[in-house]
């Protein structure tokens, strides 16, 4: 008798499950960048709560993997910390659209014995250090920007990310803009050939461990990681000549300053923008959406979700320490959603 009961329950459950799937259950698969993963998973979760028939499954496998899976059509849409390049866009069977979602930034963090204050970094100092030309902490390139701070004559140990990373992309994109020599010697990418002999740490946590343990070290970490782990980080001189400490406001300001010249495809670098309050080493992170969906139900969900994430969804952004999109950019993106067919 018990077996019969159990079987009945199972049968009912199965029937319910089949019914639920039949009643317009929509499953979307996405993959890509790890940096925006916390906010994306929050968004997908909230969206699922209000649209119980929609389930969006996101794998944070890295920007490169996201682009690859999107091109292979194993996911419905992708996500990346760097925009796709022209060569990649050509490989796609339908045109791919870029939608900025939130902002990220990279900050210089350091461990200088005896220095407790926030250090100021000029673009020349940062590019000099990462090119291996500024090698001591008491080099004039650093001391001139930090009057009153007694800097030791220790060697600078450069720490960088060893894994391919959107943070490295932002950092090298900035260095490429401010230093022609960097542009020529290293360039910008998620992994580069570092011109200086430094230490590579895996992930923000790897870099931060190396910085904490190595006296005289200087590296870069993602702003959110620095905030959440209370790491000391320096101010960077922006294009108006003002030293700005990165925070959510100064990063959003950077995006707002760049809003004027954002192209229609949103593939834009916003490092070193104009604006007195703008932090210069910031970037969008993008959702990569195909412009044509063969399944109209999926298309409608993607469009509706994007609209929600760019408007109502933005209120959850700062709670997770991401910088919000400026209004100008959101308005432009909402218009672009119509391109999805």
């Amino acid at each position, binding site marked *: 008798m018990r077996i019969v009961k159990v079987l009945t329950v199972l049968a009912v459950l199965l029937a319910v499950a089949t019914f639920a799937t039949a009643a317009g259950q929509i499953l979307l698969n996405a993959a890509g960048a790890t940096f925006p993963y916390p906010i994306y998973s929050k968004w997908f979760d909230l969206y699922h709560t209000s649209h119980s028939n929609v389930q969006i499954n996101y794998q944070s*496998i*890295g*920007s*490169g*993997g996201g*682009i*690859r899976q999107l091109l292979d059509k194993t996911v419905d849409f992708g996500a990346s910390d760097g925009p796709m*390049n022209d*060569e*990649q866009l050509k490989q796609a069977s339908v045109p791919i659209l870029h939608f900025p979602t939130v902002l990220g930034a990279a900050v210089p963090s350091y461990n200088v014995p005896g220095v407790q204050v926030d250090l100021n970094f000029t673009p020349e100092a940062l590019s000099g250090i990462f090119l291996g030309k500024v090698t001591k902490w008491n080099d004039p390139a650093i001391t001139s920007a930090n009057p009153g701070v007694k800097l030791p004559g220790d*060697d600078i*140990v450069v720490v960088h990310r*060893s*894994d*391919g*990373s959107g943070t490295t992309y932002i950092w090298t994109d900035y260095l490429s803009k401010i230093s022609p020599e960097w542009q020529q010697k*290293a*360039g*910008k*990418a*998620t*992994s*580069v*050939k*570092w011109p200086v*002999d*430094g*230490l*590579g*740490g*895996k992930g923000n946590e*790897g870099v931060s*461990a*190396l910085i904490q*343990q*190595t006296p005289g070290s200087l590296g870069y970490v993602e702003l959110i990681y620095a905030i959440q782990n209370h790491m000391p980080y320096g101010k960077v001189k922006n294009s108006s000549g003002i030293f700005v400490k990165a925070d959510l406001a100064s990063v959003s300001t950077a995006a707002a300053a760049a809003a004027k010249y954002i192209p229609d495809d949103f593939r834009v670098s916003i490092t070193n923008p104009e604006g007195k309050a703008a932090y210069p080493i910031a970037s969008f992170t993008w959702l990569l959406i195909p412009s044509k969906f063969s399944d109209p139900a999926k298309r409608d969900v993607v469009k509706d979700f994007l609209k929600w994430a760019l408007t109502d969804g933005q209120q959850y952004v700062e709670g997770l320490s991401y910088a919000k999109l400026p209004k100008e950019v959101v308005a432009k993106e909402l218009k672009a959603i119509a391109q999805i067919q």
Partner: protein
Amino acid sequence: MATTPKAATPTEFIATPRSFLRRWTGADEIAHLITLIAAAMLLLIAALLVYQLWIHSAESRARFGWSFFVTKTWDPVAGDFGALPFIYGTLVTSAVALLIAVPLGVGAAIFLAELAPPKLSSSLTFVSDLLAAVPSVIYGLLGVFLLVPLMRTNIQPALKKSLGFLPLFKGPAYGVGFLTAGIVLAIMIVPFVLSVSREVLLAVPRDQREAALALGATKWESTWKVVVPAGRIGIFGSVFLALARALGETMAVTMVIGNNPKIAASLFTPGYSIAAVLANEFSEATGNLYLSALIELGLVLFLLTFVLNGLARLLILITTARGSGVLPT
């Protein structure tokens, strides 16, 4: 391998040829088939692996050819790739690891198999097996938070002071580098050497020891001159197993090696290994050539393992041929 059924069957079965059904109901044929499939799978997996690596590295092989092995550059932006610093780092860290782990592992195995009281031996073996099961990322964390600071503040300065005249121990002490990676690897592979070597030594027949003792050898002489040589091939086997793990280790190595594609004589230099660069860069490799070059690195690692194993087997052949006729285990 499965034994041939015919040789093992009693004579009366040979006289009357067995029917097909009969052969199948007698478990021999089935066992033969199943074990054959298991063995074939192993070969198939290896072949498939090489095939996949070969196919997907086509672009990189066509572009760089043999120069891939001797090029020192690794530049994802310019699309210029070479494997030399990674091959070097893999070999150096594995060599350091073996230099430390083999004496330690074999020494401990001799103690546990021959000299220790049985109770102590079994509990220590249990601990060693436990260590073999610890995930490598844990060893990496141990390396980052314990070994790296210790290396930077104590061990490397001490080495520099005492052995600094050697090119091996020169340069600034960052804590991370070839030496640290080698030490972490050594800690990871000791349980493998220990576990297999101990089993091998225990398997040496009692007669051998008793014969040696009867001839007037001391306990240590019987162990060192009779038991250990008898188990030599098995001990070599444990070393290959350990070497294979050292060559292919990713997480723990990347956390302590410094991740800097550089070739330098000093063991203090932050370097890089093949497995570590794969773990680091694979997920974000966007360009086709970049991806293809990383896959070719995987192929190189496979090749490296193959060559080293071949060399090691050759070494056994030579030493066994020259050896004093000890029994193979």
